[in-house]
């Protein structure tokens, strides 16, 4: 609303494919995977987001601005993908087998998150993994901050139920 304190001089932001990939591929892929619960779909989203960025060459104030733009684009892209009925996938061990080979506790937490409804998963990921505030998540997902809060609250409740033996400190 009002003019806020601005960051210092704008940093250089990557707008070439390899630079974008190096800087943001993991981030976009992880978010897309949380939303789509399918690796092939997550790759589609990753490609769609980067190509969209390359085609449009948006003006970014700084890297934070670019990161937020890419996250919003990933949310929109995965939403479009999920809206297509024939592309819906459930969570199953075949989709997430890479999480069953290492630390069991971490995997159980991740898999518990993946069992949440889609809007809760997105809020949990952006809040706990990317470290965005409720207000920032609201802007990215076009949702009221109070709704985001509610999603996080319900997600925590659901996670407590799923992870009875190891209650999350959330």
């Amino acid at each position, binding site marked *: *609303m009002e*003019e*806020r*304190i601005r960051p210092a001089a704008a940093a250089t932001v990557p707008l070439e494919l390899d630079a974008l990939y190096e800087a943001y591929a*993991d981030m976009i892929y992880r978010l897309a*995977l949380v939303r789509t619960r399918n690796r092939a779909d997550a790759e589609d989203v990753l*490609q769609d987001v980067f190509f969209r960025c390359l*085609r449009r*060459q948006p003006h970014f104030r700084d890297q934070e601005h670019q990161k937020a733009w890419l996250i919003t684009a990933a949310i929109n892209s995965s939403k479009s993908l999920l809206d297509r009925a024939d592309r819906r996938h459930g969570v199953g061990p075949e989709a997430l087998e890479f999480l069953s080979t290492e630390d069991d506790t971490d995997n159980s937490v991740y898999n518990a998150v993946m069992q949440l409804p889609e809007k809760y998963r997105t809020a949990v990921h952006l809040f706990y993994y990317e470290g965005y505030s409720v207000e920032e998540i609201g802007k990215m997902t076009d949702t009221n901050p109070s709704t985001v809060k509610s999603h996080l609250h319900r997600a925590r409740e659901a996670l407590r139920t799923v992870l009875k033996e190891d209650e999350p400190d959330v």
Partner: protein
Amino acid sequence: MFEQQYKRANDRIHPRKDLLKEMEAKWAAEEAHQAEERKVVAFPTWAKYASMAAGILLCVGLGMGSVLLFSRSRGMQEKSAAAQAEAPMMMAESRVEAVEEEAKIVTATTADMAADKADAMGAAPEAMLAAPVQEAPKGMHRAADEAEVEDNLRYGFADQGLSEEAVEAETAAPLAKAANAVETAYPAGQLLARDDLLTVYLPTTDQVRVIQYANRRATLVFSLGLREKGADMKQLFWIGDEMLAVREHAGDTELLRFDVADWKAPKHLKNLTQSGTFLGAGEMDGRLYVLSLYKATDQEPRPWVNGERIDFADVLLDVEKPGDVYTVLTVYDPAQNDLVSQTALLLEAEGAAAAGDRLFLWTGAEAASLYAFDLDGDGLNLTAEIELPGAVVDAAAVGDGLGLLLQTGDGAALLTLDEELTETGTVAAKTGIVRWGQVFEDGAAFLTDSEIHWLTPAGDRALEAVGDGLRRLSEDRLLAFSADGKLQLVSLAEDGLKTLGAADTRNSLALLLEDPSRMDYDPATGRLALPAGQMVYQYRINDAGEMALWGSPLAFQDHNEKEQRELRCRMTAEGVLVFYKSGVIVCSQTLERLIAARY
């Protein structure tokens, strides 16, 4: 615990290793395809006609059974038609470029201008209501680029959160013609513009332009390139004969001064520069104050103005809140052609607002403090300060009558203060997070997630409402609006708030309302200027209670490549704003009647 586990699990997830190579190959193919399409556009005209004629002859000769040849011929015809449609546009471009290169002044008669102004100021709303929606012809852009333009549009509309159906409908809508548009070559970013309905002054990151709208045509009459391209323009002011643009460049804040006494040929005066990132600027009594935030370093421990360090004597500090961030404040007086004051405060202000005859600065939400400065005379004097029991909601929440709307721990509070900033009264309301608030002489209006509140010493009145911003239209009416284009007109009746009307403008008005803080409202004329995205919008309410919306004729967006231009809006003969691909909006003040026609 959960957070760390979730992070560790995510940190082990990566895309497969060969994905980048696959994407690079696909992207290279797409670029090659685009290059091929551009070559098709460059195909000589005579060759197109020859090929087209050959195609037609072949089709006639071989009959309708030859589907392949038929479609090729049809493609050529489309290209040819596009080339013909392109011709007037190319002439318009040449005209603009010629004006820019030679800085020639395009003249318009006084009578023409008066007629245009009369149209725009007086007759527009009534004419708008009566005017039929005009068909917008195709042919604005080159046909060979259509797929790419539509692709860009589709992504753009999708990014606005439209449904899939709406995205397709918007994308499929025809493009508007360029008869009264001027290319601004405006790069993506923030647009600032000020106009008097005939002349538009437009500073961008690379140039300052003056566009005249006379004879119902927009013409670029002046253009001045700026050194140091790429600096973000922040705010634009007009004091006396000077146009003042504030921009941020390389972490410093600059005031660009232009003498616009001769509106056809502005003169660029010497810039004023102060260290630190832009915080805010405003006009008070014919003077302009500019605020920036400067973080001290070992190499440059004190902020500077015009290359000279601010004297220690001019530095204020709060001994209880030491820090290394300065708020730099300068005051420029066009009448004296110079800065009349420069001060640095060793504190990090969160916001500033002018109210009454004083300037107020406040610090962040935790243990917020409010400082009042007197800008009279030649100095800048700190006259009072107060610790606040909450956070200042926003700049509009500092009222002229020294009322202050705060977000407190359990809701909102309207604090009234005397000249010494001593609290004289408080009225509180238990609410959620305040999204937007404004203080008036008789109370404070604010919006939460689901309600509009009217808070006065008599108490708090609330009503379920949409809300990302609000405007007070008259003594007893508020207009609340949401970012997705919903409007709600609310009556401030003594027995409670009432909804007088509501409308959903769909996406059209959402574009307009994306940043309410940048509205420039003149209650005397009822004009509301809304620099939103790529356009400047205004609305006005006439005596008949009709609200009209229209836009300044700026109107090009350049997608880095000239082949991908899009016309965003245009002014019809009646002065109606035709939103690009979104239609016309005309509605009555009571919002009982809303016409949102798509063309």
